[in-house]
């Protein structure tokens, strides 16, 4: 059929099964928005900032497992979206982001709202395109979705000049893609898998090291089966929260800079690391030369460049973790879970020595209590997003996650302002669950305009602001490593968060006690409109344990035991 470039975008979305697009219109993308206006196959959510559109698409993608879609205009529209692209690139989130561009005849003339968008996005996307001929557009759109969701997923950016969206050409979306240079390797090498199984059977203290790739590969339930059948304990990265249920006896906890004592000690004592969908991030490993020093390493990942990048893999397996774990399950009979009994006991002892906990305070609420309490009250019924900082780490430590895709956070890039728009995307993808965003008094102001989006589209996200009147994580580092010089982290001057929410048409609560918190959360869930619950928490609480930056994983600063002072 002969249609315009703008119509091609719409038709491609429909063919790809897109049901929600996040975006913000502007001059160069108007032809496409005109076609959005005329159709009723998918809904468009107007965010109030392009960065929020991309974060919302990320949240949508993480909660649904589908490709997230965002649409923005040229120039500032695009540059506002760059943080979202970078965030999705770091966390391997499949997105297709369409941007308008000035007409072909104006490219290179410093035209109004012109910027070299593909030049900017090149280093923070999996791939990008500048469309220069409308005849290429159907193929490019199809490739964009394909590249975004296959292999190691990631964001793909398509920049379309305004005149291209007006031109007419043949649209055929049933074309076969011919990507001779892009062929992701999804099946693990059987010989390597066999060797890995033999290594596991021989190991005395093996440890599963679970990463976010498991969630991307939809492999959590296969991994659960493998762990249950082998009886081998597991640690999760922050990205992997929810792969195992919090009450799984073989889940030790989260490892890394703010990992539990038992998790970090297990990683330091293991003789065989079984890494699944992980990338040995510096926040996980601490000092590399001391990381799992006495262990061999099995590393399963879809991205060959992740393998032996930082830690040498003795058993490298390139493949989709779901395929590889399924292949492993076939040979699981060779592994005797009895062999690891004393190892499991060792780990229990670690945990009893320094359990992950916190001390209550009689005067002010502790932020950790708030997170645990939401877990008790909502548990599996909530999807959890976070912003970035102390609250984020506490959420990773203390929320009782029960399933994959329950938890959405900006892990790799650490983007303050991610949580609220992401929670909007999560709610759009998964309306039957309560969408909670744990945030801080710093982070929430970085995309606070999304109150308007949530009110207009009736997306009842509950933002729980753990207010310590500080940029808490930076303050913690200043307290510990900068001799308490709290440079520019004191946020004593603040808006009235209750009035702020109300000004946009949402609902606000300010709570100081446990009873007030319970009542506010209950009320917010019932009211079913966007809410701010501002919780006044202890100002100087630190996230513990903590591995100082660059230190060895086993050298943790620990929570002072009660009465230690």
């Amino acid at each position, binding site marked *: 059929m002969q249609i315009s470039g703008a119509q091609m975008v719409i038709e491609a979305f429909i063919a790809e099964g897109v049901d929600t697009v996040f975006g913000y219109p502007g001059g160069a993308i108007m032809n496409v928005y005109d076609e959005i206006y005329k159709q009723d196959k998918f809904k468009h959510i107007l965010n109030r900032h392009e960065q929020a559109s991309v974060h919302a698409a990320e949240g949508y993608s993480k909660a649904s497992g589908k490709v997230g879609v965002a649409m923005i205009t040229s120039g500032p529209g695009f540059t506002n979206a760059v943080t979202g692209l970078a965030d999705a690139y770091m966390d391997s989130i499949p997105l297709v982001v369409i941007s308008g561009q000035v007409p072909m005849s104006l490219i290179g003339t410093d035209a109004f709202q012109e910027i070299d968008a*593909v*030049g900017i996005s*090149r*280093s923070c996307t*999996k*791939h990008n395109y*500048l469309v*220069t001929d409308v005849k290429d557009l159907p193929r490019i759109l199809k490739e964009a979705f394909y*590249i975004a969701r296959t292999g190691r997923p990631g964001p793909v950016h398509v920049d379309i000049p305004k005149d291209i969206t007006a031109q007419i050409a043949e649209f055929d979306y049933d074309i076969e893609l011919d*990507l*001779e*240079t*892009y062929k992701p390797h999804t099946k693990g090498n059987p010989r390597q898998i066999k060797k890995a199984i033999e290594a596991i059977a021989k190991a005395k203290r093996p440890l599963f090291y679970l990463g976010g790739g498991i969630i991307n590969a939809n492999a959590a339930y296969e991994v659960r089966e493998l762990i249950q059948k082998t009886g081998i304990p597991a640690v999760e990265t922050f990205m992997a929260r929810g792969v195992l249920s919090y009450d799984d006896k073989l889940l030790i906890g989260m490892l890394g800079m703010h990992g539990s004592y038992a998790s970090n000690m297990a990683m330091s004592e293991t003789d065989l690391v079984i890494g699944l969908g992980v990338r040995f991030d510096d926040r996980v490993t601490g000092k590399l030369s001391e990381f799992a020093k006495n262990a061999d390493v099995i590393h399963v990942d879809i*991205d*060959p*460049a992740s393998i*032996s*990048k930082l830690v*040498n893999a003795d058993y490298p397996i390139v493949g989709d973790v779901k395929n590889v774990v399924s292949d492993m399950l076939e040979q699981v009979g060779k592994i005797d879970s009895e062999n690891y009994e004393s190892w499991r006991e060792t780990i229990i002892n670690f945990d009893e020595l320094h359990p992950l906990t916190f001390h209550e305070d009689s005067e002010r609420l502790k932020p950790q209590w708030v997170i645990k309490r939401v877990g008790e009250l909502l548990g599996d019924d909530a999807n959890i997003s976070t912003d970035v900082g102390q609250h984020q780490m506490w959420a990773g430590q203390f929320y009782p996650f029960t399933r994959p895709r329950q938890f959405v956070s900006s892990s790799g890039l650490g983007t303050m302002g991610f949580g609220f728009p992401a929670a909007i995307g999560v709610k759009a993808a998964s309306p039957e669950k309560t969408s909670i965003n744990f945030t801080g008094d710093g982070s929430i102001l970085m995309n606070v305009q999304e109150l308007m989006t949530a009110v207009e589209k009736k997306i009842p996200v509950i933002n729980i602001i753990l207010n310590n009147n500080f940029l808490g994580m930076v303050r913690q580092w200043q307290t510990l490593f900068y001799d308490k010089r709290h440079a520019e982290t004191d946020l004593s001057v603040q808006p009235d968060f209750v009035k702020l929410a109300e000004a946009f048409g949402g609902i606000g609560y300010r709570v100081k006690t446990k009873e007030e918190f319970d009542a506010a959360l209950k009320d917010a869930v019932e009211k079913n409109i966007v809410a701010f619950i501002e919780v006044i928490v202890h100002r100087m609480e630190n996230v513990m344990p903590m591995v100082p930056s660059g230190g060895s994983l086993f050298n943790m600063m620990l929570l002072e035991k009660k009465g230690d002072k």
Partner: protein
Amino acid sequence: MTEENQRRVVSVIVINEASVLSRITDLFSGRGYNITSLTVAPIPDSRYSRLTIVTAGSVRVIEQITKQLHKLIPVLRVYEHEDMVEKEMAMIKVPITENLSDINILCEAYNGKIINTGENTIIAMVTDEPKRIDNFLKAIKRYNPKEIVRSGAIALER
């Protein structure tokens, strides 16, 4: 694994399309890898181009370079050369008042000759292994070259 930096030659076959060269060079600059020289030209009768990159790094870095290059969508193949024939070309411009027969003999030792004579200067070219080109350029210094241009290396696996 050795952490010492070593010189490596990497050839990359890429789809010959807009901005593909930027993708390659952005990867090097973004990840802090080093480019000593880079040559690029289309492969005849195909939709591909061939890049030859001379780089340096530890074994781990070189392995990452090849893997990261492979990850780029328009990259078809990456060769990290072990056993190769490697050549580079250099052209020099020398005042015509210098001893031309000496220059010609020197060039011949490096598979070259004088290829152009002008009113005031002559141009000579040589083609040889990059290390030998280094030597040639040292030797030619005494003839006061006004301009020197090197092509960067190209290589083929034996």
